[in-house]
């Protein structure tokens, strides 16, 4: 999972899109780079909000509570799954069979402590086949508490490679409830060597694929850079440091363009899946035999198995952070 940063430039009456400006600035800032598109990309986001915010009484009588969101995001560069990011319930659910153990949201994140006023969010990834089904389910069966507010798409994004970075640019269009232009979004992906990429992806059977899939689809060959570390050599603090260092590289890159934008890089929970993966790897390394043999169990159900269900979770968070328009 590469380290990324996402920028969003809202459209204004003078310029509905910042696309030409950014392209021109990249050309000017990196005169030695040949700026030819290497691909296309696209995005779709559906934003749902809890219905409480719709009530007229909630903004007059009492203090408005923090809105809760559910965001569906699909990215063409992570075609094996869609992302659902949902605000946690504010307090433990007052169910008749309440459980005290459930209240703990997750490990505190050292990269970017959560200072945001809205409740922390839960990331889920699901296969593409379930993405639309679940969205329909929530709009049909959960009407009293989830309300579909927005659909945004980036229909025709462009991908450039600039030095050690891969840059994805695109115009954000709102398609629901009314069609309008919202702005321009830019994803900057660090393609250089990274400790994060050295952590192998664990397969479904519990074994680890060293080097496979780790480099994403970047042309800068991570495997060839020579990062070959034992699991004991990487600590969680190294990952935090790596994210911080890469974030400053991305910020420096963006700074050279001189375009004002909303930034999402070190947002809450970024890097969480990478740390989880590191923990699993360390655990597997500590055991003598990492092979887990679960043969014979429901082969048919594995047809749509995702090799790395958590890939792209960071960039998904970043996109959803900048595209979480408050309405």
């Amino acid at each position, binding site marked *: 999972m590469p380290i990324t940063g996402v920028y969003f430039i809202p459209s204004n009456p003078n310029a509905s899109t910042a696309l030409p400006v950014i392209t021109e600035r990249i050309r000017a800032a990196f005169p030695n780079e040949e700026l030819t598109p290497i691909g296309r990309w696209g995005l779709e986001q559906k934003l749902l909000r809890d219905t409480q915010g719709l009530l007229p009484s909630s903004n007059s009588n009492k203090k408005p509570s923090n809105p809760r969101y559910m965001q569906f995001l699909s990215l063409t560069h992570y075609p094996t799954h869609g992302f659902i990011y949902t605000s946690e319930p504010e307090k433990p659910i007052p169910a008749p069979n309440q459980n005290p153990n459930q209240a703990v949201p997750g490990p505190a994140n050292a990269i970017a402590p959560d200072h945001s006023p809205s409740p922390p969010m839960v990331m889920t990834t699901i296969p593409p086949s379930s993405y639309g089904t679940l969205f329909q389910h929530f709009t049909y069966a959960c009407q009293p508490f989830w309300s579909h507010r927005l659909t945004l798409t980036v229909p025709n994004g462009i991908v450039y490679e600039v030095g050690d970075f891969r840059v994805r640019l695109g115009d954000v269009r709102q398609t629901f409830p009314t069609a309008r232009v919202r702005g321009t979004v830019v994803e900057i992906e660090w393609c250089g060597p990274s400790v994060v990429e050295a952590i192998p992806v664990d397969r479904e059977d519990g074994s680890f694929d060293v080097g496979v899939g780790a480099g994403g689809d970047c042309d800068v060959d991570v495997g060839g850079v020579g990062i070959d570390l034992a699991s004991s050599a990487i600590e969680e603090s190294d990952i935090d440091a790596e994210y911080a260092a890469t974030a400053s590289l991305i910020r420096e890159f963006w700074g050279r363009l001189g375009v004002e934008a909303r930034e999402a890089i070190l947002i809450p929970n970024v890097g969480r899946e990478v740390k989880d993966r590191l923990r699993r790897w360390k655990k*597997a390394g500590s*055991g003598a035999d990492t092979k*887990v043999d679960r043969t014979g*169990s429901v082969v048919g159900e594995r047809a749509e198995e995702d090799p790395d269900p958590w890939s792209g979770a960071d960039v998904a968070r970043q996109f959803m952070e900048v595209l979480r328009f408050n309405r």
Partner: protein
Amino acid sequence: MHEQSLFASVPVHQHHELLQQLAGLTAMQPRHCLERRLIFKAYRKPGMAGRIGASQDLQQGDLQRLNKMLNGNMYYTQVVGPVSESDFGSTAPVDQDTQMAGMDDSKPYDPSSPSYDYERQPWKLEFRDIPEAGTRSAVTSRLMSSATLPRGDVVEAMNAWGYHFITEYVVEGDMFVLNDIAIFLHRVLHYPGGDESNLPRRQLPALKDMALFEKSGSYVLQAFTIVQDGSNQETMKTASQHLFGLREQLKSAVLLEQADRLSLDTRAK
């Protein structure tokens, strides 16, 4: 998607014979299935519904729309995961690091003692609406959806989505397929020792300790077809006609009929 079904009750003494008959009819060996089924209930903050009074902020039309939305139905829904016989009565994978909140999947493994790893349990969200009322056709027809969820613990995500865990049970049965009809001969098993747990179990008791929900041990035969586009009257009709065809073929053995609509009510009050 729509599911059209016919049901029959099968006494336990007829079970073996019917399995043979179905194997003959469908020309396939029964596919034995065991499923964990978790029941979740949609949750809404108390005092949300019916609170909208007259307000200057809202047009009358908006108000009606909003009221309709907020007072819409909420549902129970199931999260279903396939398990195998060896998962029952087995220990959790050897793992001392109980503090770890994430997924702990790969660990030393002793092949002589099978283990059940809850963190790797696949799940599907299975939603069924209340059967449609007043259909002229004599089959149970209901809106359905089925979506794959991530492996492992689904409770955190389900809570965030607005559902809380109620209880769970197990279904054991055999599946057959005949053209576009799936035939599921099954019964419900309850966990032994009451229902004190507030979370899905991380370990499963031995299968022989599971209690029969229906004390006589009888089975339910469900024959169903899934129609992708429920608004297409033509395909819906074809599907129910196929079911009626099966009903005729099995007439001498069992009586397949429409289920009582309200007994399949999934709405949460």
